[in-house]
Structure formats: C-alpha cells, structure tokens
C-alpha cells in the first residue's frame, strides 16, 4: 500500500510538491528527492548546522524537521540566496574574506548569517559569534567568517 505522504510547499519562492515517507527528514527530501544538495549532512543530529535552512523566517536544522512538516511552509535554502546571478552581499564577502576553505559548512553558515542580519542588522562581534555558534567549522577557526559577516553587515546597512 502507498505509505508515502504527499506534501506541497514553497522552496525559494517556487511551488514544489513531493512524496516522502513519514520518517524522512526535510534534509533527505531536499537532497535525495529534490536534488537540492546545497544543504549538507554533517551529523544528522542537529549538532553541526551544516544542514541549516530557513522555514517561515526561522533558522532550523533541516535534519531535525520531518519532510511531512513542510506542508504549506515557506522554505529558503542556499540555492535561493543569490538574486539570479547577483550574489547576496554575504556570499560575496565570504569569498572576499576567505571565510571558507573546504566550504562544506558554508551553505549552513550563510543561512545562519542571513537570518542573524535579518533580525540584527548591526551586530557586535560577540553577537555574531553567539549567533553563529550553532554552525561548526573545522578549517577556518571562525576569524575570517566573523570578519566577512561584519563587512557584509556594514555594506547591507549602507545599501
């Protein structure tokens, strides 16, 4: 018997429908059913932030959300962060400041930084560091990530 759950939702502004099992997470749906491999699985238990997406303006770990819960929600992923071919200021500053080395954590960090600046356009260094504490990075030591977010904040404030 068909045990799949039919879900219709909005991802990066586009209407999307999919079928998923009850136990499938939103991360598994994005990556394995919808081919959106921007969100990464670093741990599967909400401890690393590499799978961060934004659901109804709330930053969440997509590995701790069931696919079925996406019904009727608005989901933003890294694939929708740029405006066509124009990078978001955070994306541009992450490249300029070498705020990434291997880059596996970068999609998650960009989602978290976008959410942070949306709620606090002029954060202190400490507010940035605590705001991004849910995203692990093993390559950079975080220094250049914080500087990139500071730079992007000033650009976005100015714009």
């Amino acid at each position: 018997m068909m045990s799949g759950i039919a879900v219709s939702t909005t991802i990066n502004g586009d209407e999307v429908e999919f079928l998923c099992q009850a136990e499938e997470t939103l991360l598994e749906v994005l990556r394995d059913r919808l081919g959106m491999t921007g969100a990464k699985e670093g741990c599967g238990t909400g401890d690393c932030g590499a799978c961060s997406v934004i659901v109804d303006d709330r930053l969440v770990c997509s590995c701790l959300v069931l696919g079925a819960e996406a019904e009727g929600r608005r989901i933003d992923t890294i694939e929708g962060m740029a405006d066509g071919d124009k990078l978001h200021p955070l994306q541009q500053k992450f490249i300029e400041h070498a705020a990434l080395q291997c880059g596996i954590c970068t999609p998650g960090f960009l989602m978290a930084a976008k959410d942070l600046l949306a709620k606090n356009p002029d954060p202190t260094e400490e507010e940035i560091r605590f705001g991004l504490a849910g995203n692990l990075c093993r390559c950079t030591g975080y220094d250049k990530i914080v500087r990139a977010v500071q730079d992007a904040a000033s650009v976005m404030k100015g714009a």
Partner: protein
Amino acid sequence: MGFDPSFSSRQFKSVGTRPLRPDGIDKVTGRARYGADFNMPGQLVGRVLRSPHAHARIKSIDTSKAEALKGVKAVITAADLPDMTAGDAALHSILENCMARTKAFYDGHAVAAVAAVDARTAREALKLIEVDYEVLPHVTDVDEAMKPDAPLLHENVFTEGVDPRPSKPSNVAKRSQYGHGDVQAGFREADIVIERSYKTEQTHQGYIEPHACVASVNADGTGDLWVCTQGHFVYRDQCARLLGMDISKLRVTSSEIGGGFGGKTHVWAEPVALALSRKAGRPVKLVMSREEVFRASGPTSATSIDVKIGARKDGTITAASATLRYTCGPWYGMWAELGAMTAFACYGLASVQTVGYEVLVNRPKTAAYRAPSAPMAAFAVESAVDELAGKLGMDPVEFRIRNAAREGTRSSYGPVYGPIGIGPTLEAVREHPHMQVPLGKNQGRGMACGFWFNFGGQTCTDINIGVDGTVTLAVGTIDVGGSRASLSLVVAEELGIPYSQVKAVVADTGTLGYNDMTDGSRGTFSSSMAAISAARNAIEIMRHRAAAMWDIPADDVVWEDGQARAKGENHGNLPALSLKEIAAAAPNTGGPIAGHSELVADGAGVSFATHICDVEVDPETGSTRVVRYTVVQDAGKAVHPTYVEGQYQGGAAQGIGWALNEEYIYGKDGRLQNPGFLDYRIPVCSDLPMIGTQILEIPNPNHPYGVRGVGETSIVPPLAAIANAVSNAAGVRMTHIPMSPPRILAALEAEQAG
C-alpha cells in the same frame, strides 16, 4: 629537460597578491559537489554492519536472511574481498580495517555490508545479518596495553627494533630510538633537572564532511569511483589492488573535499562500496554517518610521554630525553617514531635521546592528523621547557632563544640543519605587541614552539593554452584551502599573464598522470614546483612557435612579460608577439600548445612556528577561555597570503579544541561513549577570539619562488601554549590533555589542599 628547482629571488607581480578563488562562487551558492552530492542512475544504498564489541573472534556470519529480504541486491563479508595484498603489511592492514577477516579489533570495526534499493531496506537488512562473536578481553589504554599480561591483539607481532628479537608476541609493534651524545653525563652536569610524565587523549580530525563515495564496477572489470579524498590517485591504486582490478581500468574522480586534515589519506569504506557494486551489478552510494566517522575512521594516537630535561644555571640545556608511547589502533604505524623525531627538533642539544613505542590497542586504526604525532610530543617538551625556564628564573622566550636550533645545529632526529626559521619566529614573538598587552584577573600568558617536516612527492601537472590565449592548469593535488587560486597565481607569474587568464582544475585519475597523496603540507609546494616546470616547458614551445611565425632561429627569441621578443641586431624591428597571438596561430605552427611536468618535488625544507596564547581560568569551575591568540610562522613565500593566514588560524583552532575539550572517551566495555558532535566537543564560533597571524618569509632554497609548506605546523604549538598559559593563570601545571574543567578543578583543589 632538466628542471632547476633552486630559488632565485625576483620581483613578483602575481604571487603574493590576494585574488578571489575560482571555486568560491560554487561553494557559496551550494552548487559545489562533495562526496555525498553525486548520484548515478540505478544506484543502490550501501550500509555497513559494525562490531559492537571492542575485541571479538568472528566464528561465523549468516547473511542468508538479509539476502532474502526484498530489495536487498548484495551482501558482502571479508570473503568478497580476498587478500591480494601479497605481503604488503600496510595494505593488508587497510584491507583488514575495511572489513574484519577473523577478528573484530574495535567497537565499530566493519564486519559485513549490504546494498539495497533504499535506506530503509538497507537498515532492515543489517538487522538480519547474524554474526556469531566470541567476545575476547580488550585493552584501550596505551600503558595498560604494554603490560605483559595485557590482552593480546595479534599472536604474530614481535617488537621490531629490539635486539635480540623477543620470543614472546606483544602489543608493542616497534621500538625506535633517536638522538646523540651522552644524556646521563649531561644530566650529571645539570644544576636543575625537570622530570615529568604527560598524557594526551585520542582526538579526531573532525572534518565536517563524513566519508562518502559512489562506486560503479562493470562486468568487464572497469570501474568509476566518485569520492571525497586527499589523494584520488592513491585511492585508485589502493582500491584497484584490493579488488584485483587493473589500475588503468579504475577511474577515480575527486569530489570537492569537506575537510581531511590527514584523515582522508587512505581508503576506509571505498573498497567495500566497489565490492558491493561488483556483486550487485549496480552503482552503490556509501555515505558514513557521523557516528561511523568517529567509531571507524582514523583518529590520531592517544599518548603517554615521559620527559626529562637538565640545564645549567646559565640557562643552557645540558641533556634532554623522552620516552613516547603512542596508540596505533590494531595495526602498526610510524606514530611514536614521528613523535620521537620531532620532540626536541626545535632545540640545539649537546645530548638528547628519544625512544618511541608503537602500541597496539582495541581502538580504530590510527591515521594522520595534521603534523601527525608532533603536537603531543611538543605538548610534553614545551611544557617541561617552560617549567624549567621558570625554575631558572628566565623569561620563557629568552630561554628558548638561547637553546634554539640554528644553521649547523645537529637536529634531535639526526641530520645537521641548513638555514631554518625557529630563531626568527622567536625573535618576532619577543617583539610582538601581543606580549605587551596587559592581563586581567585570573588571566595568564603562555607561548610554545612547534616543528614539522614538510614533504614533496610525485607530482604531475598539465598546462593547456586555449586558442584565445587563456590557460587551463590541471593539477593532481586536491584543493581544500584555495590552492587552485595559489597555483593559478604561480602559472600567471611564470607565463607573465594576468591571474584572470588562468583557470585551475583538479583532474581525475583518467586525465592526468600519477600524483602522491596531498599530505605533508605538500599541496602548494609540490604542485607549484610542477606548475612552474610545466609553464617553463610551455614557454619553450611558444618561443619556437614565435620563431616559426617570424621565420627566425629560435635562439634569437626570448620570453619576457608574457611576450616573445626577437633579440639580436637584425631582428630589432619585429614587434613582440603576445601569448594570445602565438596561441591564435597555434593551428598553423604545430598544433595545440601545452606544457607538461612530471617530477618528484623534493627538498621541502622543515617548518617552524611560535605561538602566544592568553587564557582566563575560572577558579571556581576550572573552565578555561582563550582570550587572545597569535601565530607566528615561516611560509618561505606566501603565494596567497589570505589562504596562508587561513592555514595558521585553522591549525591553531584545532589545537585549541584538542587542548581544552576534545577526547575519545571509552567505557570499561571498550565502547566509544561520545561518537558525535554533541559530546565530542570541537570549538564553536563563540569559544574563540580573533586569531592573529604573522607570516615570516625566509625563502626555501629548494623551491624556485622559495615556497615552504604551511598546512600542518600551526597545530603543533597550541597544546603547550595553552598549558603554559593555564599554568601562569591558575598556578597549576596540567599534564593531561585535554585540560577539561574537571581536570583543572581537581588540580586546583589538590594545589589548595597540598
């Protein structure tokens, strides 16, 4: 054509600048594809069944129920991976680690694997595999494992490097020894002698990307493997040998890599995926969970180290000795030996002796972790050096400057040093503003030095010049921290064209010659040497093409600033030919223009660093916060300074995590208790301050631009720098890494009670 790698100083136009990396946009838009982001039509999901026991004989494995489950397409055990290693012990240990053969040697050791139509079926199938284990006594502690009555992992291991050869098997696989002079006499000469024992717990590289691959083997013996790796050529050779395939028939494509730090330098589950694919006749995607990465990939050694150092009142060290015991997991590796070689490498010592013991334990197979074995040895030595300086009433930097190795010093691992950078890093630290910053309440400052060998190795690159004059550089070393940009800068410099006209790619094993593993900080060092050689070969061809275009002898053509120029009085009026013009005429002057290089990059030259660290210790809880951190390291020549800073900061951050919170915690049952990022605590963003960096540039005489490797050294000093800072902040000398709050609080209370 002989390539001369020796250094010649020059004014750089591209090298030393900070352009944006070519892979940046894909990485910030989510388009970059890592190991788990690749799929093939008809692929199956692979899952591995792992031993729940630390040590057990495998009496039988019944896979019949699993094979009968609907949707299961293949189930394999060691029987599907016959031993083709032909006496190569290192490769046999890799094979046995991929799939247990007679015994399971650690909690998490692979014993069987399935390939099924989806994850749910694969999970069910694993539960249906019945393994008959005979549980054996286990040992996980490095010192316990060395005792004569300790549970024995192998019946056939007799300690190597001991004369006469022992008659009884033991868990000590090898003893190694280094040093010179007479340490006993040296200690008698000393006014003060420090003797201390130190322990460091096992840590993991902590790369955020779990191991992942897609394997596809066809009936005709050809195969494809898409995998995150630090060396796809080495993975190809290892997988082909383990599966009995022709090397040329297996093509391995390196995906973007989500961090490696030495942990992706040999195969873990890739041969299993290939074997599953061969048996099922369909591609298989095998992705490790985070728990599997901790339980069954390659953490570094847990260690137990004794250090003894003697010095005269005038601050001269008269003798130093160390005994270093490192866990290797179930199979021998050169881990304690590397510790024994690097322990005192920063110092010029009249008498020094280091002895290393490789100890087999029921823990996962030890793999390299960024300057493998050096951070633990440096923690012990630099802590003892700091304590000795204190007892002599000398400033720790001055004491180190007085005893530092310099050109002509006999190193503690044998050879006499050429020009080296330890002195300059120490002087730079002495002058550094960080040393003048006032300290607050409960705060302390510490510093420490670090040494690492750098390596070169077999390297191959191709330069192909497009008909529009833009250049493709194909390299075989993988790019984690921006080396594609650095290598493009080198090619732009040598060809004399703008960086924007060079695009670097990491080629797969089918399209480029063999390249060694990208380890030993060799990425930029080796591939830049090969890229320069390839560029010079391309220039040689373009000189001849220009000569053909002008119809003059090639000897009358020189290459300057990206152009061919005719020299000599009777060619004076010929206008220079740009690379673009030469490329456009290529179809008529002999076909595509390319420059190849196949070489062994050698003479990497050793690397030194000195770090400064300020910490604040909460005396009521033993919690330590890093307040300020500075890295001073010699890069020879920083090709792309921003990315060099990134290596310094990343290494320091891993060292800080190792020093304060990271450790493998085993229960009495020999099972790993914290296989996850919740309780294996790597530093988070709010734990760290900004990390200051100072790049010294003392040219490496054996590289055309003076480049040295920079990737590993930065992890060596932090353990000791933080231990010394904690000692100055809280007055307790910590000898057990990580210096977790419970350990510091216990030390503080013992101090007050004592």
